[in-house]
């Protein structure tokens, strides 16, 4: 009773810290850990312990194929958003003030509309009689309408568009937090624009790159509406599969097994990615 009162010198007593953290912890337990345990339980006990769902998952090449495709699409989208988003974040960080806010607004606009509307916008642009095909034909570049929509390419473009903000914002906030002294110091020490970027800005922004890539990658794994509307038959993604098992077949156990497998693979990839980035960071300032 007396010990927890010793809150002094800006230090929280363990109890005070626990009190402060408990709402978040409760939320996490209720909203994440409980469902997670439930999910794992469901995939293993039906009602007796059995690996039958995992056997089906591994035994049927379809599911591995879809898992690989999902990871592939998520990976490509992550790379695309990174390539497009990093320069945007860099420009935003340089601009500062209202100009940065304007660029940020442009980047954020896709988030203000529903996934449905965004996806249909791509449909309108890319369909057979859509703006892109009409323009190409009008310019005499093509004779037959190209098959643009309902392809993997269309899906990648649409997902990149939607997920761009999740890449730009973390990188931007990390870049903003880099003291302006650091690039100045580098210039003072003889580094040109490229060297400053290569040796200072880029390595220091890697935590933002990590956060952004992770966010985009994980969000990509869960994409559901866009693949259905913009993608083709080959872009069946794992979320759609889980949804199908959940809502069309009411096979929750198998859906849980797929979800658990996805979670496991995602965690593995995240861990690997962390490692790669860290090694990269080391290599970046070794020589």
């Amino acid at each position, binding site marked *: 009773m007396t010990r927890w009162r010793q809150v002094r010198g800006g230090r929280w007593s363990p109890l005070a810290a626990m009190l402060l953290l408990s709402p978040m912890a409760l939320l996490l337990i209720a909203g994440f850990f409980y469902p997670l345990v439930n999910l794992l339980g469901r995939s293993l006990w039906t009602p007796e312990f059995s690996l039958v769902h995992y056997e089906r998952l591994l035994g049927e090449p379809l599911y591995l194929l879809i898992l690989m495709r999902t990871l592939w699409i998520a990976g490509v989208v992550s790379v695309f958003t990174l390539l497009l988003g990093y320069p945007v974040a860099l420009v935003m960080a340089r601009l500062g003030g209202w100009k940065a806010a304007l660029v940020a607004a442009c980047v954020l606009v896709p988030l203000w509309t529903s996934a449905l509307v965004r996806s249909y916008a791509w449909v309108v642009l890319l369909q057979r009689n859509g703006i892109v095909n009409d323009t190409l034909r009008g310019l005499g570049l093509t004779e037959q309408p190209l098959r643009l929509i309902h392809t993997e390419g269309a899906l990648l473009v649409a997902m990149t568009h939607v997920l761009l903000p999740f890449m730009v914002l973390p990188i931007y906030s990390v870049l903003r937090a880099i*003291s302006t*002294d*650091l690039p*100045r*110091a*580098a*210039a*003072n*020490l*003889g*580094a*040109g624009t490229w*060297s400053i970027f290569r*040796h*200072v800005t880029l*390595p*220091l922004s890697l935590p933002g790159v990590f956060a952004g890539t992770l966010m985009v990658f994980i969000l990509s794994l869960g994409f559901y509406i866009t693949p259905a509307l913009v993608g083709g038959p080959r872009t069946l993604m794992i979320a759609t599969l889980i949804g199908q098992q959940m809502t069309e077949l009411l096979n929750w156990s198998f859906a849980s097994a797929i979800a658990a497998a996805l979670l496991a693979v995602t965690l593995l990839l995240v861990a690997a990615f962390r490692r790669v980035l860290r090694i990269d*960071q080391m290599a*970046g*300032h*070794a*020589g």
Partner: protein
Amino acid sequence: MAELKGAGGAPVSIAAVEKRFGSVAALQGVSLDAGAGEFLSLLGPSGSGKTTLLMMIAGFEIPDRGTIAIGGRDVTELPANQRNVGMVFQRYALFPHMTVAENIGFPLRMRGLARSEMSSRVEDALKLVRLDGYGTRLPSQLSGGQQQRVALARAVVFRPPVLLMDEPLAALDKKLRQAMQLEVRHLQRELGLTVLYVTHDQEEALTMSDRIAVLNDGRIEQIGRPEELYEMPASAFVADFIGETNFLSGDVVGLDARECRVLLDGDGLVTGRVAADGLAAGTGARLAVRPDRVRLGNAEGIEGTIAERIYSGAMLMLAVRIGETTTIMARGPSNGPDADRSVGDRVRVSWKPEDARVYPAAAER
């Protein structure tokens, strides 16, 4: 250590430099010459334009008007990375993702030095700042003073002829600061560098500098050796900014080429040297006298009462109340002749005329 000795220092010449940021005139016609190997401090209150001036020499800002030359070469518009000027930032600006050795090696790497040459120079630089063995640490694993020394090593490892320092010791505690002051000074002499040293701490400027330039509102108030500034401040501002000063206001009642007599507002006639133009009989004036030049006695001078007695170890400070509004501070050794005086005692206050300086009241900023 001999390895680090480059071509020695180079002169820095700043001519009529002006710089505005929107409506703020950060620098208005600053001219300044630092000789090769000179330790020149830029001293002034916050916002007086010190950093702006340093940034221009480093190449991070370009003057609106005027020129900057280093070693006789006009560098006014030369990009920062080609200036070959060392710089120590106030918050060190060490690269947090690089080890100490990598930080120090960075300028050498940018200059394409061979690996072996690089590591031996880094080693030398580490020795120079007494951090040998710390090469593999990250900056975050060092104390503030150690980080400061790394920044210093990094700024000199590529043998720049000029070293710029922007309040480099401001974040350190007093003891460490004093030690570092000596170290910086030692290093500067050792390497023969020209140093431009920004500080707002007049004591630091006095102890370290060959010369000091006092900045105020984007202008240079006075440039001179520390004792010149202390003994002969060219303006009331300098007198106020450097050292401690009693300011007494009144009206000029008598004036010749050297001396000026002032009738104080609180009554009493005092004398001091003429320190600036613009004094005439009948005009307002301010007389400045250092507390350590004020003498207390019972025979001559203006009369007052001791209002406060402040003991600080080696020194004793006495505040003497003259009339209603004026207080004069007098300082002497705590074992000196005034040690016995106590609050409430009547005393007479005087000084030698050559120890006091009279400025026109209008010169007040």
